[in-house]
């Protein structure tokens, strides 16, 4: 069986290990510890919709994607209800959904989708376990899936928190650099025009409006001009 993964967590990492690799271990763990498991996948909800971040074989990926395309199926139901969902393939009788058709074609009989929770009542993804055995998942399988789902949840949540902390850090660094240059420009204007700090800001913002450029750029130009003149003065 081909064991592979598609780009999932992008550059998200926990320690030195990309989230993608960690989640791949999770699907493999589920595949080997849940007795009835044939294929396992993880669905993640993103701003752009749903995607399968990891899977143990191509059939799981195909069944997942059929669910995203038809906007229905056990993994989406688990995600949206934030509850574990167990479904027998073709249980709807004559009315076969897209999920039923694709799952049947892959030889699956039942599926167990366990939500990965962001907050109480809000899921961020789902761990999907597809089985080819007849009958429902054993009670012990359902429990094991819940436990593995909890572990996967912790990984995903930690990775997301790290990403947002890094992003905030970068934004603050940029913001502080911008404040600094604007503060310098205001100081120059205050000295030249013997005005207040607020009046100096007005000078910059009017120039920004007149030239339709960002205030930071206007401030930067002013500071660079003054610095260049000072250097010329020293060179003389």
């Amino acid at each position, binding site marked *: 069986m081909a064991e592979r993964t598609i780009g999932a967590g992008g550059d998200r990492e926990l320690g030195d290990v990309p989230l993608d690799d960690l989640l791949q271990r999770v699907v493999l763990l589920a595949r080997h510890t849940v007795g009835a498991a044939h294929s396992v996948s993880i669905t993640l909800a993103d701003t752009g919709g749903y995607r399968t971040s990891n899977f143990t074989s191509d059939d799981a990926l195909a069944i997942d994607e059929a669910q995203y395309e038809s906007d229905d199926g056990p993994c989406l139901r688990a995600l949206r209800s934030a509850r574990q969902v167990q479904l027998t393939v073709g249980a709807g009788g004559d009315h076969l959904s897209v999920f039923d058709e694709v799952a049947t074609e892959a030889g699956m009989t039942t599926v167990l989708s366990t939500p990965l929770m962001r907050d109480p009542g809000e899921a961020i993804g789902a761990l999907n376990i597809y089985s080819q055995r007849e009958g429902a998942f054993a009670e012990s399988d359902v429990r094991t899936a819940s436990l593995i789902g909890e572990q996967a949840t912790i990984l995903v949540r930690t990775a997301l928190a790290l990403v947002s902390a890094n992003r905030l850090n970068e*934004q*603050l660094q*940029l*913001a*502080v650099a*911008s*404040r600094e240059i*604007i*503060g310098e420009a*205001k100081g120059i204007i205050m000295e030249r025009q013997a005005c207040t700090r607020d009046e100096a*800001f*007005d000078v910059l*913002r009017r120039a*920004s*409006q007149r030239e*339709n*450029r*960002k*205030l*930071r750029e206007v401030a930067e130009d002013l500071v660079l001009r003054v610095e260049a003149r000072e250097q010329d003065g020293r060179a003389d």
Partner: protein
Amino acid sequence: MSTSAHEVLEAARVRAGMSFDELWMDYFALGGASSPDIVRSYLAGSATQSMDYDVLAQAINERYVEVGGNHPVPYREDLI
């Protein structure tokens, strides 16, 4: 009833598609010194002190500049 200054800003922020956090970060980058809580309560109309209206207006205007607009949000001196 005339629209008050903070309502002008709040409406412009929403129109510009800026989240509150984005606005505060840009306001801070422009030299604004009030905490997110104070700015938030000002925009909601529940702050008593006068705020850096023009710094907030500038932050929103710069978002418009990015998408080809030219400072559509009025500054304090332009408010009637």
